[in-house]
């Protein structure tokens, strides 16, 4: 029984991670209509930056205080995103989709190798953060408090994002631009700034997901592509461009993944995609999706 509870908690933790990534992807797609093939690389970036800064600082700072470095990964991802969007990507929004996909794919190739260039091939960890929060006893079985805390972070992020998009003034501008760019521009909205901020926010969320996950799972090469493959299942099932879809999709995918890993580990990814394929046959734009 306790094992089930623990699996559920693990599933929720991973769902939080997937949600952040998928929500970022959906946000960018919703506002600018592009799918950033390199989105997973921002996740990887967040993980590596956090792990590296935590490791660098752990010599002088006690473990508990290291938590202030957690957001660094998210911030780094956002900064790079903000730099890339106006320079590299913006000229492609009006061009055919192939070119957008090609340029973000090129970005994927560059970022994945850049990570290898900067941090090398050995995995980076920040497990000290997990240890510092200690363990909780769930019916006799120890469980890291860290995971529970990060589930909390996920919930806060979901609520925060929802409030931001639907309750703030900036959120209104965001949604206006997403719906009709020309109208927004005609109303005097600085569309370029909205694009940059939306892209930066999307990258921030991906980076945050990486930052959250790295204390629990080491940062390794290829994690960016591995996660983009998973988050694609999330947006395929949940629907692209929808926050509710990202949340529901993340929960479903995470649960399915936990289950399949229990019973037949090898086919985990194949099983997920089989299910995604079935969902697509019935609902071509996913559960909550908007047409491209």
């Amino acid at each position: 029984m306790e094992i089930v509870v623990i699996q559920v908690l693990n599933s929720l933790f991973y769902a939080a991670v997937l949600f952040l990534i998928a929500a970022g992807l959906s946000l960018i797609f919703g506002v600018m209509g592009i799918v950033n093939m390199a989105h997973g690389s921002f996740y990887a970036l967040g993980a590596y930056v956090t792990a590296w800064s935590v490791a660098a600082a752990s010599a002088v700072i006690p473990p508990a205080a290291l938590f202030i470095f957690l957001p660094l990964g998210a911030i780094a991802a956002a900064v790079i995103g903000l730099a890339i969007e106006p320079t590299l990507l913006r000229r492609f929004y009006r061009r055919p989709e192939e070119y957008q996909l090609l340029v973000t794919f090129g970005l994927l190739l560059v970022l994945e190798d850049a990570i290898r260039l900067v941090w090398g091939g050995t995995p980076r960890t920040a497990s000290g953060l997990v240890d510092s929060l200690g363990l909780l006893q769930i019916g006799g079985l120890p469980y890291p408090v860290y995971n529970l805390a990060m589930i909390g972070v996920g919930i806060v992020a979901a609520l925060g994002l929802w409030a931001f998009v639907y309750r703030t003034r900036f959120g209104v501008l965001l949604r206006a631009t997403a719906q009709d760019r020309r109208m927004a521009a005609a109303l005097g909205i600085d569309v370029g700034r909205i694009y940059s901020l939306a892209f930066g926010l999307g990258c921030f969320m991906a980076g945050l997901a990486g930052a959250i996950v790295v204390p629990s799972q080491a940062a390794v090469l290829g994690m960016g592509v591995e996660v983009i493959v998973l988050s694609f299942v999330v947006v395929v099932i949940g629907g692209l461009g929808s926050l509710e879809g990202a949340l529901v999709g993340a929960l479903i995918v995470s649960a399915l993944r936990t289950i399949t890993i229990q019973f037949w580990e090898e086919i985990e990814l194949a099983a997920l995609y089989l299910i995604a394929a079935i969902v697509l046959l019935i609902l071509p734009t996913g559960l909550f999706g908007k047409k491209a």
Partner: protein
Amino acid sequence: MSAPQAPSLVRRAAAAAAVLAALLVVPVVASTYQTQLLTYGLTLAIAALGFNLLLGYSGLLSFGHCAFFGAGAYAVALMMRYLGVTSMELFILGGIAFSAVLAALFGVVCVRHTRIFFAILTLALSQVLWTLAYKFFWITGGTDGLRVPFSKLTLLGGLVGFPGADAFAKFITSYYYYVLAAFCVCVALMWLIVHSPFGKTLQAIRDNETRARFLGVRIWRYRWLAFLVSGIFTGVAGSLWVPLNGLTTPDVLYWPQSGKIVFFAVLGGFRNFTGPIVGAVIFNYLEVYAVAVTEYWQITLGGILIALVTFLPSGVVGSAARLSARLKRRREALP
């Protein structure tokens, strides 16, 4: 925006004949190493040819074509390992069969969707295949892969084999001509396909899906067929590649391999027939020399891809065609 007028059929045929003549003498004038390198280039060119049926002619960008290349490669390796097959002809048939089944299945999932989802799904499905290749290691050899030694290979239904001392040089020469023949067949077939009513229909769907639908064309059926043909061509490329490499590992199914295939087409120019072929061959040499210079060639590849898409979207061949057309117009305008 109009494309430059295509040169006359006679001139193109003459150019092709010249290129073929040059290709025929390569093993005679070049070293074994250079011949081997060009053979690699030809297999990649076949893969690019298959890929471009989707991108250039159907407007569908696939980031998962390494799945078919890898399927062709693994088909050969598995047939040799578990069925004791040695005939290259049978290997090619096996490669065709395996990649056809895969393309048919993947196609059903992918082609019903918008271009963005199509790109996402092809990438993802190819990675699913990759995980299967290394997880089922007791079948596929896992990360060590499966060996395909040329000494066990026979060409032309068993007529040509490679036992004995000087086998490698003999293998390279014979295999070069074999691949060259396959390349010519593939080029001829693909040329026929894109100029057929089917090919024109694909281009029409690419140009204006709505109008095509209003001609009574069932869009997704054509896309699926194109996907199938494309996958088979790329699968054949993979099957031809693996005896040359001597080995296939899950790396051949890892996503940057799909990136390379995309790169061939973008480098050469995907809006014309020969672009991807030229792109593949250029890349083949680029890679060899780039890898010698830096171990971070993936950054270079990505950077060049971004630069190409931003500044030279019609690729090498496309830009050359435009340039020559412009020069020709200027010459004709002069008194």
